[in-house]
């Protein structure tokens, strides 16, 4: 009970209302392999990775570059917050199956005219972006 109150107090103090606006990107783990192996996110923006472990065994999402370690139980999902990231490539791996579970987050700076077009989470455009495994592409 005390811990729950402490967690709530911290969340309120840290600005909970602002925590739900990050773009969301999907990452799947199947047969100890990440899909997509490269996930493109906007630079300088905090984003959420939703990792879906479709394997029966747990896996640990591990990235020194992103400074994230998280164990994801089998047949479960986990949300990992990363960024804001400077433009660049940030490798990650599944620590329990490092030989096959490898991937990278690529943070790309968007042209300023596109920054306003990053949709809020849950919209149809973001769902399409998740299916492509990357950020929205500019229309020409």
């Amino acid at each position, binding site marked *: 009970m005390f*811990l729950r109150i*402490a*967690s709530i107090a*911290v*969340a309120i103090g*840290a*600005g*909970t209302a602002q*925590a739900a606006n990050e773009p969301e990107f999907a990452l799947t783990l199947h047969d100890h392999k990440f899909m997509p192996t490269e996930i493109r996110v906007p630079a300088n923006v*905090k984003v959420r990775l939703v990792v879906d472990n479709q394997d029966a065994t*747990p896996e*640990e999402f591990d990235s*020194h*570059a992103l*400074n*994230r*370690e*998280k*164990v994801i*139980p089998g047949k479960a999902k986990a*949300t*990992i*917050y*990363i*960024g804001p990231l*400077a433009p660049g490539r940030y490798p990650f791996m599944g*620590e*329990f199956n*490092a030989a096959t579970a490898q991937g990278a987050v690529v943070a790309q700076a968007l042209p300023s005219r596109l920054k306003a077009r990053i949709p809020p989470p849950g919209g149809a455009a973001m769902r399409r972006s998740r299916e492509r495994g990357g950020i929205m592409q500019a229309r020409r």
Partner: protein
Amino acid sequence: MTAQRGRRIKRRLAVLAAAQAFVLAPLAYADPDDYVAVPGVEYGEREIELRLGTVSATDEHRQSAASLAFGYGVTSWWATEIYGKWHRSGATSFDAIEWENRFQLTEPGQYFADFGLLVEIERPRDRAEGYELRIGPLMQKDFGPVQANFNLLLERHYHASEPEETELGYQWQLRYRWRPEFDFGAQGFGDVGPWNDWEPRREQPHIAGPAIFGRFNLGGRQVLKYDAAVLFKLTSAAPSTTLRAQLEYEF
């Protein structure tokens, strides 16, 4: 557990035991084997941890301390460890048993900083010291490749033979993430005395200095982590030099 895995684990433990026997030296001032706690918890992680520290003071004999612990990530937000602690100032003696609990209060990166809570209970071998409770918030924030930690800790003895006041201490750490095998930065420790009646600065012990960190993936769930620091006195009440090191085997 297969026989092969069991043999691998036994070899790793033998390495840790040899390291302890080689490095353990007389133990020291305050808690020279103290370390900077972090708010993150890894569910299901098992670890064996060895901490060492030695202190030299200009007007005191060298003292050293060592701790050996077994830890486990019970849930995604609670990790617990049991420590055995030894002290040496002339002769080596068993010093205390400690039960440490870390609670992860926020998801890393979700808010402007990460928050946790440390709750430690120590039972010294010297029963006149009663029970020691140490509790306080753990805070961590990333600034690009730099990880910053700051912890405030309240410490008090209960059921001691002499009345004790609640004291306020702190830990801080800066860590530049350069390579998995080698990160570098700085650490600092200190206390101000009673939390509600700080001692004069000249009587407060504050130490700080350079630190190195790293990890080696051994395959499967096995990881070997280390961190070490050389800490120098910032105030006259602190020991002149503290050497501390920590070796952690996760499996």
